[in-house]
């Protein structure tokens, strides 16, 4: 019954392996080639920034890496598994167990309190409430106190919401953290705090992939992948 993951794959396997991946959005006005024969490899423990102009395909790329979307062609392996061969339920379980998302718009569940938002993926995975104190510990780690944890997302500031989102992304101990413009909706100071947290998570050994416009944020990553018109520039 338990949806816990396949266990960690061996360190020799790259967490992300893309070969010749294309993504086409068929539209009435004509097909949009959002990703154009991309080949990318990201090793475990890397801190990668994906940069590029608006509309270049950064979010599309991240969605493929996160198993939210499936490439039109090419091979994409996430922790060694070919996602084009996975069922919708296995892809969903991959998102639950292997990947942590941090979005520009925070994307917390409005009906649940901050605490419940963090606990939600835990319940999906373990089919029971968290009795280990992990939720509380993660919330404390990101600087959300017990009183704030009872609030609904609408009652929290943007920075607080993003902290809750980070705690939620970490709850099932994912292999990869994917961040799409995590500081895009935050002021500079709060953005810097969030970046400090992500950097710390990388220092603890996590794979962090971050999409950003901001060169100063891109500079904090170990490696930058530049995208233009769906192709890798450098």
């Amino acid at each position, binding site marked *: 019954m338990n949806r816990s993951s396949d266990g960690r794959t061996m360190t020799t396997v790259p967490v992300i392996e893309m070969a010749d991946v294309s993504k086409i959005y068929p539209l009435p006005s004509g097909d949009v080639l959002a990703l154009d024969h991309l080949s990318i490899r990201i090793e475990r423990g890397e801190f990668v920034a994906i940069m590029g102009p608006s509309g270049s395909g950064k979010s599309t790329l991240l969605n493929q890496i996160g198993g939210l979307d499936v490439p039109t062609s090419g091979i994409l392996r996430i922790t060694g598994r070919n996602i084009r061969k996975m069922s919708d339920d296995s892809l969903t379980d991959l998102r*639950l167990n292997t990947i942590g998302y941090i979005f520009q718009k925070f994307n917390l569940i409005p009906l649940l309190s901050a605490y419940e938002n963090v*606990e939600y993926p835990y319940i*999906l995975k373990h089919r029971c409430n968290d009795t280990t104190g992990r939720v509380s510990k993660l919330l404390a780690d990101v600087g959300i106190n017990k009183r704030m944890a009872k609030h609904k997302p609408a009652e929290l500031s943007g920075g607080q919401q993003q902290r809750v989102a980070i705690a939620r992304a970490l709850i099932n101990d994912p292999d990869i953290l994917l961040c799409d413009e995590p500081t895009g909706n935050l002021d500079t100071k709060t953005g810097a705090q969030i970046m400090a947290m992500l950097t710390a998570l990388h220092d603890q050994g996590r794979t962090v992939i971050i999409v950003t416009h901001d060169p100063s944020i891109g500079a904090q990553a170990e490696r930058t992948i530049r995208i233009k018109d769906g192709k890798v520039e450098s």
Partner: protein
Amino acid sequence: MKKDIILQISVRSIRLNFLRSLLAAIGIVIGVVAISSMGMMGANMTMSVTEELSAMANVLVVKPDSGGGGGGMMGGGGSSSDDDYIDKDQFDDIERAAGKYGNVYPLYQESDTIKIGDEERRATIYGMRDEDMATILTVANGTLPQTSNAVVVGPTFAENNDLTIGSRITIGDEDDEEAIIQKVRVVGILEEKGMSMDLNSDNAIIMTEKAYTGLYGGEGEYDQVNVILYDIDDADTATEAIEDQLNRKEDEVQVQDSSRMMESITSTVSTLTTFVMAIAGISLLVAATSIFNVMMMSVTERIREIGILRSIGTRKSEVLRMFIYEAVILGLVGAIIGAIMSVILGWLVVLAMVGTTKYFFTFASLIYVPVSMAIGIVICIVSGVYPAWRAANLDPIEALRSD
């Protein structure tokens, strides 16, 4: 599994949109109340009519077959079967055939003008053999008639015409020169008998056979022969016995079995009930539309939330469940409120329409409460399925992009 987070979210979504959800549930309440109170009304009506009728169900009425079976034989010299009376031989045959199943007695019947004091009116007049009067009639007041100028009257007839023992009635139309006029005296008033197929004595004048044939002639030419069955279960056997005896060559008599009439009346009532319930069912259709509408609104408003849920690892089936729960909760709340209200309202409807609530708390009547609840809940689920399916099959990325 201590806490179903999916159910939690459904409950909270309903609470968040309380007013909207309440309105949708009211549709179900109305539907459940309508169906169950109509059903209960029908069941109560059937039971009360059945009881009323079964009191008179033990009677077979044998009448001459005047039916057009042999329409072409009009001119052909009358065989006895074409007469519009039952003659003495036929009566003997009937008695021979059905005597062991019940009490067989012949009856003369006429409608005539009468005069009481100065008032003229029409009345039903029966003629009965003396021995039958003794067994069939029960006198409340006075005695049975012995002579040709003595009659008994039914209690309704007595009351309507202010008759007491000793009152005088003139039978026959005095303006009609050919009519025989007979002045009679009331010697007895009968006990109330209620509606019946064989003899409606409550509102009639009953005289001896001799008095009757003296007035109208036709001795031994009975208008009908009644069989009062000892056991109602013999109705079919006795009917067959009579028909075998008399209708062997051609249809001489018609046997009317009151239990069959009762069946047809109860089946008419139940057809009517079904019809009324179907109309009530339309209200559930309206409810289904409102549930569907609310569910679609809920899905549309929560597209982004669905995208979030899917993106962080909620399966399609879990999203589906979330919205089905929502529909089930609406249905359950509506059905429970509806059930409580339909007991109250149904009771009032039954009291008003049937006149008695003595059958209200019976299985056949109260069964409509759970039945209509179940219908209400099923309707809710059915109308929730499509919206829930829509929600579950949203593309997570599209859903996340929406605002």
